[in-house]
């Protein structure tokens, strides 16, 4: 059986607000199409071979987790930038989205250096941006739940994932959300994002299958339950 390998970045430290649901969604949607899935955890202090994986996922975490992870992640900066340029599908939520940027400045003015996959800078603030969020993107409408105090600014030539229709997004003023580099996507959408936004999940899956097996089209799935749940989420203020 054909197997897709998912790298889960630092699940012990960065695994909050149901982010695990994204791994569940990728796994099931691949299994339903007849593929086997293997999830490999990236752990602090243990060398990880990214050349063997097909999708990379990382979630959010507590500040303490972010400090521990930040240093370890720097080892893989060049590898991950090259993989992003080569079209590797990646999804980074919240805390790891920030660390995939240029830097994150904490509340105590501590600077955590990022790995520059995205040209973004994040500065912690006193306002917590919490609530249901709806954005419009090239994957259509995306719904999620955001919960961050980091204010993220896009650098020169950095494309956002989408426009905010409801909620905050990258920061409390500019009404854009997330960042994209090829098939690498970073954003603040917890929720978790993939189960309720199957188009986005399938875009990551198709990119992986294209790279590994030259597959051009995905088998259609019945997404009526997914879309109903997304509709309800989009109406919650």
């Amino acid at each position: 059986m054909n197997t897709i390998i998912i790298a889960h970045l630092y699940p012990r430290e960065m695994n909050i607000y149901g982010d695990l649901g994204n791994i569940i969604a990728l796994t099931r949607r691949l299994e339903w199409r007849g593929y086997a899935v293997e999830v490999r955890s990236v752990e602090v202090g243990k060398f990880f071979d990214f050349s063997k994986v097909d999708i990379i996922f990382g979630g959010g975490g507590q500040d303490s987790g972010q400090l521990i992870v930040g240093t370890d992640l720097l080892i893989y900066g060049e590898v991950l930038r090259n993989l992003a340029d080569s079209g590797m599908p990646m999804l980074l939520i919240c805390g790891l989205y920030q660390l995939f940027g240029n830097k994150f400045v904490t509340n105590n003015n501590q600077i955590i250096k990022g790995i520059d996959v995205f040209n973004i800078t994040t500065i912690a603030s006193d306002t917590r941006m919490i609530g249901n969020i709806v954005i419009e993107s090239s994957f259509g409408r995306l719904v999620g739940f955001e919960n961050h105090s980091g204010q993220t600014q896009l650098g020169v030539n950095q494309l956002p994932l989408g426009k905010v229709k409801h909620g905050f997004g990258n920061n409390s003023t500019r009404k854009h959300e997330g960042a994209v580099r090829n098939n690498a996507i970073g954003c603040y959408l917890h929720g978790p994002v993939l189960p309720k936004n199957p188009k986005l999940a399938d875009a990551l899956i198709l990119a992986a299958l294209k790279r590994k097996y030259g597959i051009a089209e995905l088998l259609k799935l019945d997404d009526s339950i997914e879309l109903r749940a997304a509709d309800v989420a989009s109406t919650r203020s």
Partner: protein
Amino acid sequence: MRQTLTLIITKVAAGASRISRRGGGGALPGLLAEKLDPKLASRLSAQLSHGVILVTGTNGKTTTTKLIAAELEAHGERVLTNRSGSNLRRGVISSLIDASNLSGEIDATIGLFEVDEAWLRFVAADLQPDKIVVLNLFRDQLDRYGELDTLAGLIGDGIASTKAKIYLNADDPLVASLSKYAARSDLVNYFGVEGLPAKSTRRQVTPVDSDRCPVCKTELVFSRIFYSHIGHYSCPNGDFSRPQPEVSLTHVNESSDESSDFTAAITGKRYDFQLQLPGSYNLYNALAAIAVGYGHGIAIADLQTSINTTEAAFGRVERITIGNKTLLLLLIKNPAGFTQVLETFLSSKMKANILIIINDNLADGRDVSWLWDVPLEILSSTQPNIISSGIRATELTLRLKYAGIDSRSIEDLSSSLNALLDEIPDGSMGYILPTYTAMIAIRQELSKRTDVPKMKL
């Protein structure tokens, strides 16, 4: 004079609020008193001749408070306590105002309050308690409180502002580490479990809430895990390890859906208890209550009687009969609690009839993503018949789909309850798992069909 005026104003406000049915008279008096006379709570509580006990922690506050209240009452104390929905500072102050007359006299000997984790520091500073109990710290509505480490620090500040005896869960590393905030080391007491069938130290990806050394942040080594991050642990660098509890459970003799018979060692001697509550999480609540009762000088034989005869708090494990069918009402609030309910009641039942009601109102937590942190997959081999209801019924149906379980969404509460009752065979049992506001709504729905005990809010 200021005090009398404040009491008059707040009591009138409580009355008005009760009549207009806006808030059940709950928080408003406390809210007003905070503004009019910030020292009122300190003065009122100073009359409680046998002191004040505070109970905090993510899960089990209401049940533990109920168990301790039963022990104290059987011991002859007149206990002033608060309701589970009013455990912020203003709720505690409201209970004090409600219990006092206009001269500010309170007819009670002891105060016993469950307190929200983030508010403990304020309530502790106001009331200067004699005893503080910390049960556990799990992820719960982090959208309100930020992070567990931060929350533990806030509780620590509360402890540090008092000279209270503290009662800590030895098996929760973050809670056990709060000992450093005690005014003196001889004020620290621990309760914990020695013998309970341990879960494998399975290292799955489901979130473990706090498994790092509170001192050096290295990953702790667990020799046993009872559930979530609760177990026997030590830091590989030797910076921190599980303290030896004075009150400990040595083994569970028998457990069912309704009760748990266990043996506890209290400073070395063994005693049997028959707790009228199921589930390992309630064993910890009972141990906390035993430790506090013992610390209060209550005879162990009396503690046994109280523990053996106290029933569950409203909605925690409530049995309701409709005709010849029985419903078990089990409150779910967060991943740890939901997981415990699954493991205790449902993981080994074939074809159980289950109604799960998910709301996302403020009191439930606006963020429903926590459903994805619950290992619902463990039900997939039992072929349950599940109906999803509530505001976010569709989210649960989606979660179940990805756990390999079919379910029906019926958002309307009354129709979902009818559907459940239709499915339960005569003489059998069904399960209702509601979030907080869903529990209030479903109890109302049930009361149209049968006698349901009034819930105090």
